[in-house]
């Protein structure tokens, strides 16, 4: 049915399979769903074993900070979506601006997370610490999940920042334009996915207690 063939001439890719490119990106996101999924599986199993301790330990996390971070990330998704609307409308410079805003929101997220982690680590709470190991098993597992899940999520945020920075560069050099924007769109897909992961992390880690 779909019989578009692309040339293998990589010197100048004049023919881009737009749908194929998006399909590839979605397939990559499926791998990310299963990657984070493994962590959510662990969470689910341990939550059901240690429901009481998860309840009490979750209350030790600052819900307000978590909520603020959620709003920050959701807004970064908005600016990312704006950047796509802009490029499709031919407004390349506006698109680059929205991409920059996205990075700024992402940095804010990471900075808030840094302070959150610092506070916990300052209190001696981190994987393998004596203060943590002296507590109940459910508490140990909860904090391990907290650090590992938000940590791996944070690495994905960082990677996203780098990728968006590359996109800004390409947008300003007209390599991304209304004629060829699939790479920006795929970046948007990645970014929204990172947001979705946090949308689940927030209630599961912060809102139990």
């Amino acid at each position, binding site marked *: 049915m*779909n019989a578009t063939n692309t040339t293998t001439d990589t010197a100048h890719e004049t023919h881009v399979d737009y*749908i194929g490119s998006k399909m590839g990106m979605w397939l990559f996101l499926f791998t990310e769903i299963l990657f984070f999924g493994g962590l959510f599986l662990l969470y689910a199993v341990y939550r059901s074993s240690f429901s009481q301790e998860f309840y009490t330990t979750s209350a030790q996390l600052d819900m307000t900070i978590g909520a603020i971070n959620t709003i920050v990330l959701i807004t970064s998704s908005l600016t990312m979506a704006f950047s796509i609307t802009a490029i499709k409308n031919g407004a390349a410079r506006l698109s680059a601006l929205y991409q920059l805003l996205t990075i700024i929101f992402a940095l804010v997220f990471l900075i808030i997370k840094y302070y959150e982690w610092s506070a916990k680590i300052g209190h001696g709470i981190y994987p393998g610490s004596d203060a943590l190991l002296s507590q109940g*098993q459910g508490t140990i597992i909860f904090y391990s999940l907290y650090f590992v899940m938000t940590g791996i999520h944070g690495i994905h945020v960082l990677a996203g920042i780098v990728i968006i920075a590359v996109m800004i560069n390409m947008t300003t050099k007209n390599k991304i334009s209304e004629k060829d924007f699939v790479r920006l769109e795929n970046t948007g897909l990645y970014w929204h996915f990172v947001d979705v992961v946090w949308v689940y992390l927030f209630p599961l880690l912060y809102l139990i207690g």
Partner: protein
Amino acid sequence: MITRESRRGFYSASGKYRGIFSWIFSTDHKRIGILYLISILAFFLIGVTFGVLMRLELIAPGSTIVEAQTYNSFFTLHGIIMIFFFIIPGIPASFGNFFLPILIGARDVAFPRLNLLSWWFYIIAATLALATLIMPGGPPDAGWTFYPPYSIKTTTSVSLAAFAAFIVGFSSILTGLNFITTIHRLRAPGMKWLRMPLFPWALYATSWVQVLATPVLAITVLLLILERSFGVGFFDPQKGGDPLMFQHLFWIYSHPAVYIMILPAMGIISEVIPVFSRKSVFGYKAIVFSTVAIGVVGYLVWGHHMFTTGMSEEAQLIFSLITFIVAVPSGIKVFNWVSTMYRGSIVMAPPMLFSLAFVFLFSIGGLTGLANASVATNVHIHDTFFIVAHFHYVMFGGTGFAFFAGLHYWFPKMFGKTYSQRVAHLSCIVMFLGFHILYFPMFILGWQGMPRRFYDYIPAFHTGNLISTIGSWVLVTGLLIMVINLLRGLFKGEAAVSNPWDGTTLEWQIPSPPPKENFETIPTVTHGPYTRSQE
């Protein structure tokens, strides 16, 4: 006019790189396929070496050539190398890369640069895996399955080995992602889904498993590394963790992984048998259906590796039931292959001989799988040599022999040369015999209670082990005959024609070796892949 250049097809240098760089920086799927083929065969031989060393140790009770610690590293590395660097990438990365685009009438895969990246990930990962041999702490000794608590406590280079597995996972994911997109987007005009040959179908199902299962391995080995480095505690009972959660996560990948191994192998057999039976394949749709079914159902059986661990009874029974169910589509395929041969005109060329060996060996492996799948017998044979024999029959007798079948089938097309069919027949027979001598005694030894992963055993098991080790020498002899025969063909063989086997699929309509962009004009497909003109 056939010049020397045009006879060399895609081997003629082009593009901006010269020499070795025109290969290792190439985005041509055919060159990448050959890069993978060479890498995979190299690591296969390294894996074989570890296997031979293991058998040397086991030729007699007590310490023969090494002590326990070294033996543990042998079987760990044997497993890691064979599984992650030979069998999983094996067929998809080599023959899949080379032939998928050609079989569907395309010029290349959907993402040629990601294709090259996937090979580089493979090479980096393989280097890291080999590096564990010389790292402080010594090579890993926890088995390729890395179970905690031992994998957490051991001071050997488990983290590095686990990281190598993490990286090679990316290689696998990129291949899968590429193939899915290629098959959806780049089929030639007229090649509807149900006109696609069975090898691409097999690659399609395999690719989905690669995409959806490999990430679970990634997170698992990452958590293992975090556990060793920071003591997070997910698998440590003292901290509230559960070692069984590691096993669940591990097998959620590693069982579907065996279907990554076998589906492409079955795809090759489905290509070879019709050609050498001079008949269209029997039950094309049934094979398609069972291919997909194996991919789907194979996802749901992982618990059968954990029957003896203390899993709940409910889980044991359900996993056992689903495991029995997944054997059905495999059985369907065997019936289809045999039915294809019935009333066919059999040509016993080397690819066919290897394929018949596959059917026989895979059937034994599969049937013994049912013995393992029954919880009652599993309790008796888990962690014994019965299991070792079972998986070697399916993975080596199955995927391994199918790999050799593909190698002999597609050799003329890939290299434009021919090999001695007589010597190839000999190598197949020697390997087949060596295989049984090596592995069949293991069924008996395992049944009698000999545990796996031990460098020593009680004297009662001596005879079986002695026979088995001798079998390993016979098998390796056959391997060497095969390798030498193919190398000789590569360098001194006569030129091959486009269609030496009278095949009906698209790769046989283009020159041997293929030109750089495969087809002068993209063909329009008007019939199924196995229709013969006289039918």
